[in-house]
């Protein structure tokens, strides 16, 4: 709601040197992507919005007005923060009690299937090596091989290998669960 905030923000810019207006523009450009990346990991909308909140708070403190480099950073941070959430099982389990998962679900039957799928994905991501899980989330969240390479500090030629291994491991885990 930028309209309302502008006067106050200009005052802050004058008084405290805080560039909230610039940060708001950055936030609005990238918020949707960050939430969706986080949602693909934590699998509930409120949890994803909480992750995004933490990520943008950190970005604000880290980049201090120069947001050119922050676009890639917030996406990577969203993935890692979300993975931290699903891997912190005790903390996560508590959150699940109080925060119901929501989504755009068309029917009761689909709701059941969707819940199962969410739980399955969350468990699988928890079991995969962290870097593999991160690469999977980034790729299926729309990041390019180059962006993933930058994010994970690997050569771009290795991204395909990492993804291949991750998806192969994912398939094996899913097959194993099906058999059991």
């Amino acid at each position, binding site marked *: *709601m*930028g*309209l*309302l*905030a502008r*006067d*106050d923000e200009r005052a802050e810019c004058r008084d405290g040197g805080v560039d*909230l207006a610039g*940060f*708001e523009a950055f*936030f*609005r450009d990238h*918020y*949707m992507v960050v*939430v*969706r990346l986080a*949602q*693909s990991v934590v699998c509930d*909308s409120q949890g*994803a*919005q*909480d992750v*995004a*909140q933490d990520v*943008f*708070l950190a970005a*604000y403190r880290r980049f201090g007005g120069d947001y050119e480099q922050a676009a890639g950073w917030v996406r990577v941070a969203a993935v890692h923060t979300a993975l931290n959430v699903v891997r912190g099982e005790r903390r996560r389990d508590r959150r699940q009690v109080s*925060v*119901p998962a*929501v*989504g*755009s*679900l*068309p*029917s*009761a039957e689909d709701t059941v299937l*969707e819940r199962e799928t*969410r739980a*399955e*994905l969350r468990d*699988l991501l928890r079991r995969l090596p962290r870097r593999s899980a991160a690469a*999977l*989330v980034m*790729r*299926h*969240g729309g990041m*390019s*091989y180059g962006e993933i390479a930058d994010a994970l500090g690997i050569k771009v*030629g290795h*991204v*395909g*290998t990492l*993804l*291949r*291994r*991750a*998806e192969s491991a*994912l*398939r094996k885990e*899913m097959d194993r669960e099906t058999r059991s």
Partner: protein
Amino acid sequence: MRHVPDGVLRRLDDEPLAVPDRVSKHLVGCARCSARRVQIARDTERAARLFSRPQLVPDTDVAWARLRNELRGSPLDSADRHRRPVSGLWRRARFPRLSLRAGLVIGAVGVAVAGTAAAATLTTIFAPTRVAPVSLTRSDVRAISALVGLGDSHVLGGFPTSSGSRAVHFGTIKWSSSGSAHPVSSLAEATAQAGFPVSLPTRLPAGVGAGRQFLVQPRVHATVKFNSTAAALRGSAVTLGAGPAVVAEYPAVSGPHLPALVVATMRRPTALSSGASMGRIEAFLLGQPGIPPQLAEEIRLLGNLRTTLPVPVPAGASVRSVRVAGWPGILLADSSHAAAGVIWEDGRGMLHVVAGLLDSQDVLNVADQLG
């Protein structure tokens, strides 16, 4: 050439231009690599299915307000962390003597505008978690229109233009939107423009035709800035955002050329105050000369307006509380029971209205399909 590494085969489907031509040439003549490529593509597709799910449509305005609050060092309390700062007012679903189309389309979007009508809701900065009926007589409408300086029809239906401003005795009201309600050719286009998924019924009541039409109302913002007349609020501003909204109209199989069924979906309205508390603004607006005491009292009796979305109910209509797919809602029916409408908010922050020239049960049957 040696066989193609798995990683390159994996990239071939995602970024083929980044893979040397010799790889594609090799695949033509190598059954082993081709077979591996197929397996890799299968695994990729399987993973993609796992990651694909209905996309969350976050409310960026609300998220920014929450973040801004934290950046300013005044974190919300824990109960409010998961609550969306929101407010607004659904306009009433009109009954046969009025235009269903105008009432729902403009009403859905005119929240912000005519929102001034139910004075107190203007100041709400929190999420409405329930809807509640407020009786509205013609004299109430006239009183409100006098207060906000708009004609009766605009109070009920929305702003007269897509953008503009108006001076009122307690300040100014400015509004803007990216356009007016307009027809679109398909549901896909409607959802693309609105930015959220829309559920529609698959089973229609008898007498309702399947040839639906879609309308999209872009988002509307309205800012009320208070002047010194409102001493306690001087300099404060309240900005309301409403919409976008998608309206699907279904024709009658026979009979008058009126929509027999209307299904409207919109993001719940939001309102943010620059400083004045909801309590102060409520007290000011409800205390204005000309506001009928009964209306003021009825609004006060709603309780916590920060979590309540008042739904104006025309005089003579019957009202009852219902549950739609588990969510609490309000069912309205006109005195002749020739028309009915139901409004509810789901757990995803979306407002829904189903109304038509139908009986109450038919309306509820349609609503339950939307969940």
